[in-house]
C-alpha cells in the first residue's frame, strides 16, 4: 500500500538539498569540466573531448601517483593490520588493568592529523629530531627520513600507521568481544594449541571484520591528504605524491581545472571498481563463514 504522508518533502528537503548542492552538482560539473581545456581565472574554455583523459593516461606522472598510492595504501594497511591485530588479541586476553593503556593507544587517532604530522615531523627532523639524535648517540648515521625517495615513503607509511593502527585495533577488539566463547572453550577442551585456535577458530570468525577494516582503510587512502602534505608535500620530487596530492597540485597549484576534474573522475571510477571488488570478496567471505 502506497501512502503519501503530508509534509514528507519537508523531512528530505534539507539533506537532499544539501546533497544536490555540494555533492551532485559538483560531481556533474566535474564530469562536464573534464572535457574542457580550462585554466582557472583565464575565463576561456575550449572543448577538447577526451583530451584531458588521453593526456593523463599517457603521462608518467599519473601512473607514478597511482603506484605511490598503492604502495602507501598496502604498506600502511599491512602494518596497521599486523600490529592492530596483535594488540587486539593482547587486549582480549588481558583481564587486568593494562586495558587502561588502550586509552593512551587511542590518543594519536583522535589528535588533529595535521598536529600529528607536525609531531612526527619534529621526531624525524634531521640531527636534532629525537630519532636522529638517538641514532647518532649510538654512532649510527641516520638516513634522510623525509628527503630520500624511499625513506620518505617509509616515513609516510609509518605516520599513517601511527594514526590508524589504534582504529584497526579497536575495531578488531570489538569483533573479538562479539566472538562466541563456546567455540574457544571447545577448542581448548580438544587440546588445540593457541596458534591453532587462532588460525582455525579466531581468524575465520573474524574474517568479515578483517575485510571490513582493511577496506575502510583502503578507501581512506583516496581521501587522505593532511599527513603527506605536512610531512613531505608529496616530495622529494614526486616520491610520495598520491592521487589526491596530484589532484591538488593540478587543480590548485597549476590551476589546470579541466585536467584536475578529469583526474577526479578517474579517481571516482577507480574507487568504484575497488568497492565492487571488495564487496564481492566480502560476500564470498560471508558465504565461506557459513560452511
Amino acid at each position, binding site marked *: 500500500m502506497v501512502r503519501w504522508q503530508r509534509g514528507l518533502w519537508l523531512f528530505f528537503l534539507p539533506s537532499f538539498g544539501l546533497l544536490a548542492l555540494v555533492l551532485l552538482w559538483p560531481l556533474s560539473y566535474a564530469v562536464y569540466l573534464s572535457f574542457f581545456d580550462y585554466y582557472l581565472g583565464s575565463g576561456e574554455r575550449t572543448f577538447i573531448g577526451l583530451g584531458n583523459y588521453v593526456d593523463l593516461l599517457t603521462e608518467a606522472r599519473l601512473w607514478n601517483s597511482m603506484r605511490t598510492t598503492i604502495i602507501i595504501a598496502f604498506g600502511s594497511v599491512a602494518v596497521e593490520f599486523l600490529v592492530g591485530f596483535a594488540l587486539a588479541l593482547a587486549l582480549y586476553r588481558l583481564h587486568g588493568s593494562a586495558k587502561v593503556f588502550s586509552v593512551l*593507544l587511542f590518543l594519536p587517532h*583522535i589528535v588533529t592529523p595535521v598536529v600529528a604530522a607536525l609531531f612526527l615531523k619534529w621526531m624525524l627532523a634531521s640531527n636534532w629530531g629525537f630519532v636522529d639524535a638517538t641514532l647518532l648517540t649510538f654512532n649510527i648515521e641516520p638516513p634522510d627520513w623525509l628527503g630520500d625517495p624511499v625513506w620518505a615513503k617509509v616515513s609516510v607509511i609509518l605516520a599513517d600507521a601511527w594514526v590508524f593502527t589504534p582504529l584497526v585495533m579497536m575495531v578488531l577488539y570489538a569483533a573479538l568481544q562479539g566472538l562466541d566463547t563456546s567455540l574457544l572453550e571447545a577448542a581448548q577442551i580438544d587440546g588445540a594449541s593457541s596458534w591453532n585456535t587462532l588460525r582455525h577458530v579466531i581468524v575465520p570468525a573474524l574474517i568479515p571484520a578483517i575485510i571490513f577494516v582493511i577496506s575502510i582503510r583502503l578507501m581512506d587512502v583516496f581521501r587522505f591528504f593532511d599527513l603527506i602534505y605536512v610531512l613531505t608535500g608529496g616530495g622529494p620530487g614526486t616520491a610520495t605524491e598520491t592521487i589526491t596530492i596530484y589532484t591538488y597540485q593540478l587543480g590548485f597549484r597549476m590551476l589546470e581545472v579541466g585536467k584536475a576534474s578529469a583526474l577526479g573522475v578517474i579517481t571516482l571510477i577507480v574507487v568504484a571498481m575497488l568497492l565492487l571488488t571488495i564487496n564481492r570478496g566480502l560476500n564470498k567471505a560471508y558465504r565461506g563463514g557459513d560452511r
Partner: protein
Amino acid sequence: MTARRARNFAFSGLVLIAAMIWIFPLYWALTTSLRSENRIVSDAGVFIDELNISAYVEVLSTSKLPIWYLNSVATSVITTAIVLVTGMMCAYALSQLRFPGRKTLYLLVVASFMVPVPALYVAQFILMSDLGLVNTWWGIILPQLIVPVVVIVYKQFFDAIPKEMREAVLLDGGGEFTLLFKLYLPLNWGITAALAIITFITTWNNFFWPFLVVTSEDMMTIPVGITQVNDAFGVAYARMMALALLAAAPVIIGYLIFQKRVTEAVMISAGVKG
C-alpha cells in the same frame, strides 16, 4: 595458573610497550614545548626537566591563534548542529514513512558515503567561488554538511523502536514532527551525543577543505593556521610544538574526559554498530 599469569604478564607488557611507543611523539612534543629554544638543539634529555612557558606566551601573543580558535569553534558547532538536525530528519523519513522511491533515496545516501570527496574539490571550489563564499564561514561549512554516516546510524536506531509507541502518539493527535522530536529523539539521546562528538571532532580536525577555501589569515581554522606559521617560524621547534599542542588541546582534553563516549563514537562512525 602460573602459566596463565605469565601469559597475562606478557600481554600486559606488549600493550604497555605499544602504548608507550604510541604516546611518545605526543610526550616529546610536550617536553619540547616546555624548553627554551636554544636548549632544544643542544641537549635532548628524555625527561621533562624544564617548565619554560615562554613558547606558549609567545605563540599566544604573536600568532592569530585566538581568532583561529573562534573560527574553528564556530564552524565546528554550526556544522555539527546542521548535520545532526538534517540527518535526523532524513533518517526519520527513510525509517518511518512509506512512499515510493524510498529504497532509491537510501541507496543514494549510502552511495554518497563512498564518494572520495577530495576528488571533487576543484568543482566544489568553483561552486563556492561562484557563490561568493571563499574566505567565509559558510564556505568552510557547506561542503562539510554531507555526513551520510549520521543518516545511516540514525536510521538503524529509529528502525529498532517498536511501532506501538508511534501509534500511541498518533492517537493523541501528534504529527510526524511531534513524533520525531518528542519520541524518537528523546529515546536516542545517547546516540545523538555520540554522533555530535564524532561530527565535531571530524570538523575540528579537518584540514584539506578549509585549507583550500580560506586564504585570508583572519578566516583560517586552527589546522590551517598552524601549518601556515610553520614556515614562518623556521626551526623554532618549541614554539611550533606549543602551537600544535594548543591546537589539539580541546580534542585531547575532551577525549580524556569523555574517553568511553569518544571511542564509541569513532567506532560507530567506522561502521561498527554501538
